[in-house]
Structure formats: structure tokens, C-alpha cells
């Protein structure tokens, strides 16, 4: 018996050694950024229903604004305005972030007040300056459309209700991922995907420490960060609004003042203008501001250009995205 145990032990050790060696060979050099998956499994019927709802103007009080009005799917999921226009052309408080890859964010909105994509839908629909509607109103309108009544019956086996609507939209948003950016291809082992300049830009992005905040699968989006760690950005800009207090508006705690969700940098080249206030018109501006207020450093012009070049390789592909 003892003899067998010994043999077993040796055999298992050998097995572990083999797998360890094999694993060693398999792993590529570790990077703080990971590529997006090619696709994710979702219920296609729900995705299609969500797409219809996303583009449906009946979600707004006067039937003029759909989700897609501010998150133009073919243009990177943003409206490219500093601040979005809602119903009756009311101007919003903050810049509209992209809906692409939004599911990888730690929370939704700049201040992270919604946890999941489902909860997020309540926000724009009810906000007076965005859609200015309410669930009874929206459900009432959708119920008049036999097509929706049929689809909801088929897919959810339930009458139209806010929970289903939110789930459909969120499922659609989950389908909005943009894999196959040049940088992702580089991560997946295609050494020729990046030019030497771009690769240098990536090295600088890492060595300057942008990577400390913008990292992970979404190159950002996985944490909250004070805007203005080294220096008071808001004082320098002037004209502080309620929205500038960021996460403080949600938690009411002093240390959350001026704290925002770190935005994802995927597709950043096509989502100008930048920051929650939409104050940076170009990537160069944004990178300079980042360097000054987030890194507490001044970067040479040349390095900024290289980083911008790197940021431009982050634009991925999706069949509805036509940059």
C-alpha cells in the first residue's frame, strides 16, 4: 500500500511538472491590457428586440429622441457633442460616453450611479433633459404596437413591462463589443499589427503610468479615480457645476469629491470630445491634461504624439460600427 502511495505521489508530481512546463510555454508575456473576446453568447432574439428598442423614439416624451440619438451606434456609440441634446434640444450636463463595451465597466455613468446595464436604462428615460418620460408612459406607447406585443410574448412569455424592456436593451448593449482592434491583434500575437511608433506609444503609455488607471480588458472602466490628483483641474477650468462633483453626488462622502469612473479608452479616437465635461476637443489635449492632472508630469510633445498614435490603434470592429 505504502509503495503504491509513493508511486502515486511521484506520478502526480511528474504530472504537475509537465503541466507547469506546458503552461509556461503557452503563456505569452503578461500585459496589463487583455483583448476583447471575439463574440459572446447571447439570445439573438433579445439582441434584435433590444436593437429595435434602442432606436425607438417612443422612449422620449415627445417621440423625438431615441437612445441612438445620443449614442449613435454607427459613430462609436457617442454623439460627438461636448454635451448631448435631449428632448426640446435641452442641453445635457455631461458628455455622453460610448455604449460600446459598456458591460465591462465597473458601473454605469461617469459617477457610477447605476450598477448594471439594466439599472442604467432608468436614467436617461426619466431625466427631464434627456428623454423626460416614465415607465407607464413608455409601456403604454409600446403596448399599442402589435409587433412589440408579439415579440415580448414570444421572447419573455410575459406582457411588456419595464423589467423586460430593460433586459432587452441591456442584452443588446452587451452585444456591442468591438474586438479585432489593431492593438488587440498585437496582444493576440500578431507582431506586425502595430507600427514601431505605435508600439513605442504603448511602451510610453505603460511607463508614464497611464496604465495604472487605464488598464484591463476595457483599458479603463474598472475603477473610479479622482480627476485632478496632482493639481486642481476644476479650479483651473473654472465654472464648477454640480456634475463636476462626480461620485460625491452619489455617495455624499468627502473623499468622493471630483471622483469619476475612469473611462474606457477603446475606440477613443472616434469618441471625441473627451472627459465628462467634453472639454478636450482632441486626443492630444486629453493626453496633456491627463499627464498634468493625473500623472503630475509634463510630457515631451513627441511622447504625447506617440501615445496618441497608440490610442488610435484601439479602434475595434463591430458590424454596426462605421467610422
Amino acid at each position, binding site marked *: 500500500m505504502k509503495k503504491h502511495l509513493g508511486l502515486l505521489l511521484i506520478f502526480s508530481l511528474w504530472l504537475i511538472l509537465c503541466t507547469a512546463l506546458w503552461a509556461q510555454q503557452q503563456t505569452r508575456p503578461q500585459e496589463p491590457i487583455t483583448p476583447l473576446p471575439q463574440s459572446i453568447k447571447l439570445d439573438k432574439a433579445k439582441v434584435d428586440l433590444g436593437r429595435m428598442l434602442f432606436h425607438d423614439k417612443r422612449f422620449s416624451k415627445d417621440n423625438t429622441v431615441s437612445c441612438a440619438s445620443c449614442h449613435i451606434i454607427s459613430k462609436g456609440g457617442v454623439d460627438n457633442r461636448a454635451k448631448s441634446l435631449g428632448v426640446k434640444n435641452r442641453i445635457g450636463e455631461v458628455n455622453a460616453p460610448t455604449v460600446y463595451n459598456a458591460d465591462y465597466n*465597473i458601473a454605469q455613468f461617469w459617477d457610477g450611479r447605476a450598477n448594471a446595464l439594466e439599472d442604467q436604462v432608468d436614467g436617461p428615460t426619466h431625466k427631464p433633459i434627456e428623454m423626460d418620460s416614465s415607465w407607464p408612459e413608455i409601456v403604454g406607447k409600446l403596448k399599442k404596437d402589435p409587433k412589440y406585443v408579439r415579440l415580448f410574448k414570444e421572447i419573455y412569455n410575459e406582457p411588456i413591462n419595464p423589467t423586460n424592456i430593460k433586459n432587452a436593451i441591456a442584452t443588446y448593449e452587451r452585444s456591442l463589443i468591438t474586438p479585432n482592434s489593431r492593438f488587440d491583434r498585437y496582444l493576440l500575437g500578431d507582431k506586425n499589427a502595430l507600427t514601431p511608433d505605435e508600439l513605442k506609444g504603448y511602451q510610453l503609455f505603460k511607463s508614464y*503610468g497611464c496604465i*495604472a488607471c487605464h*488598464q*484591463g480588458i476595457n483599458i479603463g472602466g*474598472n*475603477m473610479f479615480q479622482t480627476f485632478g490628483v496632482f493639481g486642481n483641474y476644476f479650479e483651473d477650468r473654472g465654472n464648477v457645476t454640480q456634475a463636476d462633483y462626480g461620485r460625491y453626488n452619489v*455617495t455624499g462622502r468627502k473623499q468622493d469629491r471630483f471622483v469619476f469612473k475612469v473611462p474606457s479608452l477603446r475606440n477613443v479616437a472616434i469618441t471625441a470630445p473627451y472627459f465628462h465635461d467634453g472639454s478636450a476637443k482632441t486626443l492630444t489635449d486629453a493626453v496633456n491634461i491627463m499627464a498634468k492632472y493625473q*500623472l503630475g508630469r*509634463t510630457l515631451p510633445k513627441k511622447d504625447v504624439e506617440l501615445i496618441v498614435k497608440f490610442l488610435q490603434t484601439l479602434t475595434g470592429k463591430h458590424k454596426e460600427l462605421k467610422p
Partner: protein
Amino acid sequence: MKWRYAIIMLAIALIIVLYFFANSFVGQDRYAAAEQILRLYKSDALALNQNILRTRFGFLLHYDPLRSGLRNMSILQDKLSQFVKDYKAPGIGLKDTLGEKLNIKKRLVVAFMRNNSILRNSVIYLPVAVSILTTENVAHSNLLNTLLLNVLLYTNSANEALAVKINNLVEQIPKAITYADTDTKDKLLLTNMLKHTKTILTYHPRLNTLTRQVLQVNLTDVIDSLSSLYSSERDKYIARANIYRILLFIFSLLLISIIIYMIICLRKSLRIETETNTKLNSEIDARKKAEEEVKHQNVTLETEVKNRTQTIIDTNEKLVNEITKHKKTSDFLRKAQEESKKNQHAKNVFIANLIHKITTSINTIIKNCKNNTIADDAVVNINKILDTVTDYANLEADTLNLEKTSFDFHELMTSCANKYQKLAQAKQLTFKLHLPEDCPQKLIGDHKRLNKVLENLLDNAVKYTEKGQIEVTVTYKIADPDQVILRFEIKDTGIGLNEEKRVHLLNLDDNDGDENNEDVNLNIIYCREIIKLMGGNLDIVIKDDVPGTIFCFSVGMQQGSKT
């Protein structure tokens, strides 16, 4: 009847089995699901703690594991709440504590990430800045390197004395190191470096506290107590389900045995039916053969009338024997299938058939025997036997109904006496009838059968008595105004019986095989049954000193109108 009960029992057993089946699964899966949730929750909580430490010491390159860990735990917490709500499960307090702790942990982890990134950047930047500043101006290297060394030492300890030292240096350096106004680049670099040093001084202790706090929020102990609560709850349900499973097992056995029993019954009754059918067929064949024989004998009718008549009688006797035999078989079958109505019916049909056949064949014979006086007697005899057989069949089937006609009792007795007087004389025996004068004359009852009983018994008496006399004594008793009880005693001086034989005769059974005395037995059984129907009892008395046998019985009759 039996089938109906069996089917009802089957249905009940089936319902009970289904009920037990349904109950033997209730409850445990849902607690298994809850335990699964808690298991995942716990492993996520443990992984989160590990990832915090790995991040703190730079082993993790990005925060995605922390982000997805928090998200998974939130989802699991929601599932847990849903579970507690859906099943009204216990442990609401624990679940709420867990939720509160998770929220605290989330807040701390988010703060941890924020502070960790900033501290990381500053710690990485400081050596870079110092090396640029010192290579450009070697004069400052001493002071700056001291600062760097102290900061690096500080970041790897919790020594607050170092913090004081660093603070002093940060105050000293701007005074000690000055640049020309034109040298804005170095000036800015120096201020940035000092800013980062200050950042380290504030973020390092803060991060240490945060790390400690995150690890101190212990989710696993709450999860453990919840899962032990749910596993004991699950055990309870399993114990309950086990009882149902045992019951299920027992009742399944019962169900199976009922089904097997039913199958066996079904097969048996099928087999008996086919057996009866084959018997019936062979009977018909025998009948046909007999008929052919009769026909054959017709050819030599003129010369062999006597022989032929005898043959007919023999044949018929044989028939009777065969009927008796067959009855015995069918009675045996009836025993096996005691309550089977169906079978009883089959037998009745069979006997009815048989009698029908005999009647037809007799009728053929009668037709052939017209104008033949010798055959007449035989025909009368056969008719008598047939009547008996009919009665017998009816007795067997319990369908014999006594007639109720009024008749003259005295006349019946005298005609009977006359008949046997002659028969007795032929054998040189004396025959006596004692009938009280005042015995009621008009009675209501089945006189034909009474007559037949008397004749049967007298036939026997005449048959077995060689010399001496045959005596019939009638006594009566009026029980109530309507009812007369008549007692008959038929005494002969024949060979007599011993006790054994007497008991045997009285207890004769339909299927007692006594080949020699078949007809006697049959007669006695017949009499006994008819007497029983008339409310009396047949008895045989033997007296040691007097030779012969006394058959006695009494019957009840209704009195007819006195007029």
C-alpha cells in the same frame, strides 16, 4: 366483483405511490442550489482577499479580477436575496449582514484601487525624477538620493519615524536646491518630484489601512454560518424525503404484487374457460356417436326391439353417468374458481346444453318407437331421469324454485302407495302405508317434487329389499294455522347399512366418486337437497336389532283453504 376491487385498490395504490414519489424530491434541491450559491460566494470572497494582496504587492497587472469579483459577489448576493424571498428560507438576518458587509467591502475595494494606482505611479516616478535631476546637476545628488532612499525604505515599512524624516527633507530641499529662473524645466521637475513625495507620504499609510480594512471585513464567517444553516435545513428535507422514499418503495412493492396477482387471476380464468370448452366438444362428439349407434340399431329394429330398448336405457344411463362425471369436473373447477360468476355461468350453459341435447335425442327415439309398447316404459323412465337431471342441474345452479300449487295430499299418497304396492308384490314383498285420517288433505306446495322424493326413496327401498316389507308412515304436526309439518318414515327390511355407510350416504358430496352406486348416490343427494329446500332434513336411522333401514324426513307445507 373481485376485479372491481382489484382495480380500485390498484388505483389507490398508484395515487399513493405518486404522492410519495412527488414528496421524495421536495425541498432538498433548493437548499442544494443555495449551498451552491454560498460556495461560489465564499470562493469569490477568498479570491478577492488574495487579489487585494497580490495587487498591493504588484503581482496583478490590472484590476479586472477585483472588478469581476465584486460584480460576481453582487450577483450572488442578489440571488441569495431572491432565494430567501422565494422560499421564505431562514437566515434573513445573516443574509442582510452579508449584504451590508459586502457593500462595505465594495466601498473599501474601490477606494483601495484608486489609492493603489496613484501610489504606484508616484513610487515608480520618484526614482526616475531623481535620476534625471541628479545626472543634470551632480551637486544635488546627495540630498536627493537621501530622500529617495528614505522614501523607498518608507514604502516598504510602516515606520512613522521615516515619515517625519522625509517631511523634513521635503521642507529642506526647495531651500537647498535652487535653479536659475530660466531653468523652468528642472524647476518644474523638482516641484513635481516633491509633489509625488508628498503623495507617497499621504497615500502609503492610507493604502496600508485600506488593505487591512478590506481584509478585516470578513465575509466568509457569515457565509459559513449561512451555509451550515442551509445544510442542516437541507438535511432535514433529505430525512423527510427519505421517509417518503421508503414508503414509496413499500407501496411500489404492493403495487407490483397487486398487478402480478391480477395477471395470475386473468390467466387462470382464461385457462379454465378453454378447458370447459374442450370438455363440451368431446361431450358433443360422444353424443353424436351415440346417435349414430341408435340409427344403426334402427335397421335391425324389428328383430331386436328388446335388446335395443335395453341399449337405449344403457346408453342413457351412461349419459347420466357422464353428466354426473362432468358435473364433478365442473364442480372441481368451481372450487378453484369459487366466486367466478362467469364460470358458473359457463357451467350452467354447459349443463343446459347437455340437457337440451339429451332431450332432442330422446325425442328422436320416441319418434322412432311409436306404436311400440315396450319402448313406452323406457321412455317414461328416461323422462323421469331427465326430470331429475334437470332438477339436479337447477339445484347446482341454485336456480331451482319450488312450485306452489295446491294438491290433495291423500290422493298423492294413495296413488304412490298403489304404484309401489304393485312393484312390491312383483318382488313378493308387502307394502304398507300409515296415513292418519285427520291429516290435512288440501295442501299447497311442490307435490311433484315431494312425489319424486318419495319415489326415489321407495325405489331404493324396493331395490335393496329382497324379502319382508316396506312400510311408509306419515305423521303430522300443525305448527301454526297455516303451516303443516309432515313427517315421513320409510322403513324397509333390506340389507341395511352400517354406521360408516350411513354417514357416508348423508354426507354425500357431488364429487364423491362411487362408481357402483352412482345413481343411488345421485338420488340420495337429490332427495336431501329437495328436502332441504322444503325446510326439512333427511335422516337415516339404523337399529341394531331390527334389520333394514329407516329413511325419515319432514317437510313443511302450507295448508290449503279449508273448504
